[in-house]
């Protein structure tokens, strides 16, 4: 009994930071419709500023003062981000803002490294709350009890702000229809900035207040963000009370998980989330998202057409040039090109579901890594020949996508994206924690191709044929009747439905196809490296794919491929620099603001001004 209560209390105390970060994220999303991926970074900054301030401000007043001060500093940083990065792209589609926040993550990571160095910082303990209290014989840290008391007051304060003040009323109105709020004379920009300040300050507060329990390190930004997403999705986007309930649920579950099911702590959270979403698709306290009710009437997208003669000739010439590389290029060039081709196929598969299908997935790595692991497991445990294992990669990834897709396509927009993220994290945590089978962190090694495919040059040719073949297959699919149906479901699901298209089936099939093709890329990957590690399933891998699709041009056909090729080449050179994340982050933010059409879109725009056409005519 005593132990049980102690664990419950620990869970409740752990919920504090999670709740603060999640409520901030939820608030920002509600009003601005931006999923701020950089919210974990703001939490991290709160912790670093907290440590710094606590070291110079003495006593209890200094301690609590530092927490408040760090929160305000992080709030101010949030304002800077909002004004410099997000304000220029509010009119752009949601994905652009999302990618901009990826850029912010990278920038903050390197700036933190620059200012505070790579070493973990120990969190100072709270003056006057350093000892423990015995409850039912179990020692409970006083600070935990303090957190349990403080958090409900913060919840109450936020609730009062949102439901009782004019600012709160405006925030809620803007959550529903921000254009109308503007037409009634409310300055939306300031409302947005205000909400960003509050949301960021909450994240900073979360970072600083958890210091005596956790400290500050450079990994805490991405470590918390997936838990925060889970909380926000379980609680319901935009609901503060939901964020609180879900934080408590997840934290308590985690503590009990560590105690009773130590092998499955990471998985547990995502399982709970999947169950909640099945029962209540918009979270415990969320409301159904009505998409496109008062959408901006912008320029309609230009239709995607097959490549014209010029485009085909160019692609053929490129293929020929790639085929000739082994004649002239070094071994290193071939290895690099193999990596690039694999990444291109991976990106093309994401672009297929994202651009053609309108389904923004945050967890595409699940299928890339899933395919790689499927092949590696078959080789390791069944001693299967490489050919069979290689074919198993897209098959297994496709099956995985069929299962995940069944859940995901019931949702749309942000909830869809969050669920894909959760599923990919589920796969990642399974692989990471199921040490006996997957080798956990040590990965699976000695997964080499058969004799007839081994050797850098041979495998390069193999990758070239399979990779280019896969990309061409996806392109053909886009111009097939299936592709037309898919585009119809993207542009208007309702109208497509009324036309007689089975929207669910079409989207499901597209999801599965994208997953299988990502798995194919994963299969190519595992045999080119001879090993696979859990990081191929990580959020960063999914983000990478999203970023290159975006960099290349979301509304183009070849954007993913071009973006992937560009990014892999640049990264190879960039990662030799110390602060490459900073440069990459700024590059991403720069592209979002200056050239939102991406590389392909921008080049196409330029060449069309010169009178060159790359696509074929539509047949009438």
């Amino acid at each position, binding site marked *: 009994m005593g132990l049980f209560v102690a664990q419950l209390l620990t869970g409740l105390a752990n919920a504090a930071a999670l709740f603060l970060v999640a409520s901030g994220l939820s608030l920002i999303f509600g009003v601005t419709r931006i999923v701020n991926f950089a919210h974990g970074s703001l939490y991290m900054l709160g912790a670093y500023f907290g440590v710094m301030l606590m070291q110079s401000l003495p006593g209890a007043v200094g301690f609590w003062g530092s927490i408040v001060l760090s929160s305000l500093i992080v709030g101010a940083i949030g304002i800077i981000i909002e004004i410099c990065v997000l304000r220029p792209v509010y009119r752009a589609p949601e994905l652009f803002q999302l990618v901009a926040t990826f850029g912010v993550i990278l920038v903050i990571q390197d700036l933190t490294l620059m200012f505070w160095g790579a070493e973990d910082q120990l969190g100072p303990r709270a003056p006057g709350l350093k000892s423990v209290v015995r409850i039912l014989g179990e020692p409970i840290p006083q600070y935990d009890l303090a957190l349990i008391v403080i958090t409900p007051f913060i919840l109450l304060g936020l609730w009062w702000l949102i439901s009782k003040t004019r600012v709160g009323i405006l925030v*809620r*109105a803007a*959550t529903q229809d921000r254009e109308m*709020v503007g037409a*009634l004379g409310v300055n939306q920009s300031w409302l947005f900035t205000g909400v960003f300040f509050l949301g960021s300050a909450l994240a900073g507060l979360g970072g600083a207040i958890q210091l005596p329990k956790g400290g500050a390190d450079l990994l805490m930004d991405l470590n918390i963000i997936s838990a925060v997403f889970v909380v926000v999705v379980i609680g319901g986007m935009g609901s503060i009370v939901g964020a609180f309930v879900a934080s408590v649920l997840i934290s308590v579950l985690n503590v009990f998980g560590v105690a009773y099911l130590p092998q499955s702590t990471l998985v547990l959270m995502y399982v709970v989330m999947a169950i909640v979403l099945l029962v209540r698709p918009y979270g415990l306290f969320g409301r159904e998202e009505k998409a496109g009710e008062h959408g901006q*009437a912008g320029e309609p997208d230009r239709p995607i057409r097959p490549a014209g003669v010029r485009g085909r000739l160019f692609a053929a010439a490129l293929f020929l040039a790639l085929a000739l590389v082994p004649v002239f290029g070094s071994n290193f060039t071939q290895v690099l090109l193999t990596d690039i081709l694999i990444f291109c196929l991976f990106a093309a598969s994401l672009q297929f579901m994202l651009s053609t299908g309108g389904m923004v997935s945050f967890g595409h790595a699940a299928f890339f890594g899933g395919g790689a692991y499927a092949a590696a497991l078959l080789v390791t445990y069944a001693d299967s020949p490489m050919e069979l294992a290689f074919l198993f990669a897209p098959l297994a990834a496709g099956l995985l996508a069929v299962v995940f897709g069944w859940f995901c396509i019931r949702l749309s927009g942000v909830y869809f994206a969050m669920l894909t993220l959760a599923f990919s994290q589920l796969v990642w945590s399974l692989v990471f924690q199921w040490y006996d089978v997957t080798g956990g962190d040590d990965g699976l090694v000695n997964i080499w191709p058969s004799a007839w495919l081994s050797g850098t040059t041979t495998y390069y040719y193999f990758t070239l044929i399979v990779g280019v073949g896969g990309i061409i297959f996806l392109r053909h699919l886009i111009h097939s009747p299936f592709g037309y149906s898919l585009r119809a479901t993207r542009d208007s699901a309702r109208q497509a439905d009324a036309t007689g298209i089975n929207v669910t089936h079409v989207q499901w099939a597209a999801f599965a196809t994208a997953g299988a093709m990502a798995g194919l890329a994963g299969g190519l990957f595992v045999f080119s490296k001879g090993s696979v590690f859990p990081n191929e399933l990580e959020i960063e891998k999914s983000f990478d794919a999203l970023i290159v699709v975006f960099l290349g041009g979301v509304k183009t056909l070849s954007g993913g491929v071009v973006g992937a090729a560009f990014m892999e080449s640049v990264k190879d050179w960039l990662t030799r620099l110390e602060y490459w994340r900073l440069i990459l982050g700024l590059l991403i933010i720069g592209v979002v603001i200056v050239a939102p059409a991406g590389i392909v879109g921008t080049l196409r725009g330029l060449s069309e001004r010169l009178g060159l056409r790359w696509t074929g005519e539509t047949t009438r």
Partner: protein
Amino acid sequence: MLEISALNSFYGKAHILNDLDFSINRGEVVALLGRNGAGKTTTMKSIMQLVHPKSGRVSFDGADITSLPSHKIARLGLGYVPEERRIFSDLTILENLEVGRQKARKDAPVWTVEALFELFPNLWERRNNRGKAMSGGEQQMLTIARTLMGNPKLLLLDEPSEGIAPVIVEQMAKTILRFKEEGLTVIISEQNLHFARIVADRAIILESGEKKFDGTFTDLENQPDIRDAYLSV
């Protein structure tokens, strides 16, 4: 008071407003008439900069407002009542009114929550209800009341009689006539000629985003060909 000159607006590539010109004088009630798709709503949205015109000029009290953001235009005293009503359905009626609240101004009638509840007694009874469970007529009253909370000088009413019961339409006509007595300038877009004739002093007829007629209702009656060409179904 309001001058529109050579206004051109587009939705994507579709040309909606074509070199539109007209002006509104202080204290007038003007009806914007025309069939579905004639450009009535786009005219109002272009005035409010909810649609950004490609070219042309809108000036209000002599100042160019063409490049201002919507909230600044609203603060200058233009009150927009959208056709789709756009009630904040998660907010109570009182909260909806609060969103619209702006400072009083000297040259326009001043509205308080109490005065609006007097004008629309139905709203008072449901003041703490959320916007969700309201009839079309009640929603329309709330939309108008919400905009009046901004104490506008010029009211843009987009199809106020659409989708509400005939009894309420009559009540609406009386309300608009009362606005006129209070000194409010009103532009009202309508498909219902009968309703427009009761409340408005002047008619402007649009067709394919072009102005086809601008004059009094007596003039319009003397030109049945215009009515037949642009208004009858």
